[in-house]
């Protein structure tokens, strides 16, 4: 049993070894790590090899070296863009042919005629398909570990969490790719349909996490702010203005009295009257604002359940699908703290237009971004990985059932 599994594993390595794409991706990873190692940070700004570029926002006074390499270089660019997107697409291109080639006429007969059960044969072949990504991520993580350790002066073994996480992320897609490859026997079809699924998952994730969750949090902040304004701030300010709006008693001296004292008293009386009038005007405006905000509060309260309903619907759909983005975010959650992400949160939310009324309410976009970030981080690892692995299990179950029962 071990002999057969090892043979399949060695064969998978030989297959990879014979593919140019495997070595090209590995070379690009090495170049990326080398390029990142050449970038540094000092008290004035960024350095690239011997050149220095002053930067008031990014220097060792605002960011530690370790945080620079982790939060600015490797996780957002290295893992979240290079490994999670570019290298994954290249990995899919490279591995999409594994199952169609395996079940092609003349090849499958050689495998099925051996003393190995079909289920074990299929699952082992599927597992060896993950070797491409495993080796790529392992090499990249080792490079990142060394650069963060040597250049960032922080030895971060948790960076190796990227190996199981990115392999898990890839395995969701590869399971689907294997199923489509098994059904259609076509490499192109399995690749295209898998990329379509990936895009669909991304759209559902964007709708749920970036749009609906953001809108829901914003609406909740608005309601809180409006409630505070309607129930506390405005009544208090109205009461203050109304207290100021009480006119003083008219001076006792006759209007014909032209003495300086009488004149001064009348001026004082008139000034106090004007102040009272202005206070009354302000109080009236505030009352008007109170009415408007009370109406806005009611509207916001009415709108919230609708938003929550849509969010729940998308969340339910997402629960059934593999969580590709969240799986990758687990590494960020593991390696970086929430404070490290403050800047990222700002950037993310800058694209959202503020409503005019929200400016008056002093709704801070950074607060909303942090609330969204916190809500995302509150989602358990088991929800993220567990439901994704259930999806993968179901897909693999269907594929295995087809493989076991099919006549080749």
């Amino acid at each position, binding site marked *: 049993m071990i*002999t057969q599994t090892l043979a399949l594993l060695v*064969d998978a390595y030989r297959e990879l070894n014979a593919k140019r794409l495997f070595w090209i991706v590995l070379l690009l990873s090495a170049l990326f790590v080398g390029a990142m190692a050449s970038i540094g940070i000092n008290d004035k700004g960024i350095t690239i090899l011997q050149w220095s570029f002053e930067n008031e926002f990014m220097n060792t006074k605002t960011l530690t070296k370790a945080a620079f390499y982790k939060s600015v270089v490797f996780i957002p660019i290295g893992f979240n863009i290079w490994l999670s997107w570019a290298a994954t697409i290249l990995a899919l291109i490279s591995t999409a042919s594994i199952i169609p080639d395996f079940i092609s*006429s003349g090849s499958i007969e*050689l495998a099925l*005629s051996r003393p190995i059960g079909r289920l074990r044969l299929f699952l082992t072949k599927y597992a060896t398909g993950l070797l491409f990504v495993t080796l790529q991520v392992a090499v990249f993580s080792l490079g990142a570990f060394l650069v963060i350790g040597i250049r960032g002066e922080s030895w971060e073994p948790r960076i190796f969490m990227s190996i199981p996480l990115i392999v898990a992320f890839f395995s969701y897609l590869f399971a689907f790719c294997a199923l489509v490859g098994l059904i259609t026997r076509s490499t192109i079809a399995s690749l295209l349909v898998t990329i379509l699924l990936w895009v669909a998952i991304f759209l559902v994730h964007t709708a749920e996490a970036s749009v609906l969750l953001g809108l829901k949090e914003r609406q909740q902040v608005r309601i809180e702010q409006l409630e505070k304004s309607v129930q506390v701030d405005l009544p208090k300010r109205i009461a203050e203005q109304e207290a100021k709006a009480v006119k003083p008693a008219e001076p006792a001296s006759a209007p014909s009295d032209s003495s300086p004292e009488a004149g001064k008293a009348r001026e004082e009386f008139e000034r106090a009257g004007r102040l009272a009038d202005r206070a009354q005007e302000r109080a009236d405006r505030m009352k008007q604002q109170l009415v408007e905000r009370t109406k806005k509060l009611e509207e916001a309260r009415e709108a919230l359940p609708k938003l929550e309903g849509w969010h729940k619907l998308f969340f339910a759909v997402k629960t059934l699908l593999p969580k590709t983005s969240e799986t990758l975010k687990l590494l960020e959650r593991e390696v970086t703290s929430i404070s490290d992400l403050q800047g990222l949160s700002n950037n993310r939310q800058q694209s959202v237009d503020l409503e005019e009324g929200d400016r008056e309410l002093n709704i801070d976009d950074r607060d909303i971004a942090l609330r969204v970030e916190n809500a995302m981080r509150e989602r358990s690892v088991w929800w993220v990985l567990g439901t994704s692995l259930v999806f993968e299990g179901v897909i693999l179950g269907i594929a295995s059932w087809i493989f076991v029962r099919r006549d080749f």
Partner: protein
Amino acid sequence: MTPNSGDAAAIDLTDVRKTYGKKVHALRGISMNVRRGEVFGLLGPNGAGKSTLVKILMTVIRPTRAHGTVLGGPVGDKRALARVGYLPEHHRFPEYLTGRQVIEFYGAMANVKRRDRKRRAAELLELVGMKDWADTRVKGYSKGMRQRIGIAQAVVNDPELVVLDEPTDGVDPVGRKDIRAILVRLKEQGRTVFLNSHLLSELEMVCDRVAILVQGRVHSQGTIDELTRDQQKYVIEIESSPAAEGVVTATDLGLGPLARQGDLIIAGTHDARAIQPLIDRLRSAGITIRSVRPTRPSLEDLFMQAVTDPNTGKALNPGADTSKEAGR
């Protein structure tokens, strides 16, 4: 090779059926017996069900119904496959492997230990004449070289039964001769060889017994001698003589009607004693006999008889039968 205890047949099949969907009856009740240590040939026209039958034996296709055994285990039992070697038709080995790696990989898949695999691979490369090409990738092999490596991987697990599907397909005459020699070696080593081939002359040369499949059924099976016994003849070649006509038309020789084709007189018997009176008569008539030889139909003749409708004289539809009654 590890000899198997007991003397049961290598393959013993009863009523093997395969129906695709509800209409296409690829196999309609195959019963077949392959004895241990023999070279058994399976022949039939395209679509007769040969490959389907082989694939059922190799667990590549699941039968609709199958009773019988392969090396003592039930048909479909994976454990028995550890003692079986297989070369499929139109096989495709991974092109990134060398010939040696192909043999070792499929050896490992058959659970052969690493040390044994290495040793067997070296021996087999020598046996199939691929020693000098052992470490060249399959990608650069000719069709004949791939067939040789294919045969080597089929026996890397020291099998008791070797199933070869069109092993000489695309191989030149020299290569075919070499492969025939390998088959003889396999037989000499005590292995059972189950051969599926279109090349009837080759089957005739190496097979102890054959079965002819037509439309998903076994038309006939046995040794070539058994299958042709009723059709064996004696051919007597004579020098032209006017007296010959009188001998041929004689009715008192106890041979039944004789046929004449030019200088040949054909007697429809396989019994040497039965033609002695005819020889005596020819001599007494002063006719010179050049040769007397027994003949029998070739495998090709048998095959053509099997695939020809006796009523119409036309070739039978070679493919799987799709009629409702066909599966019965």
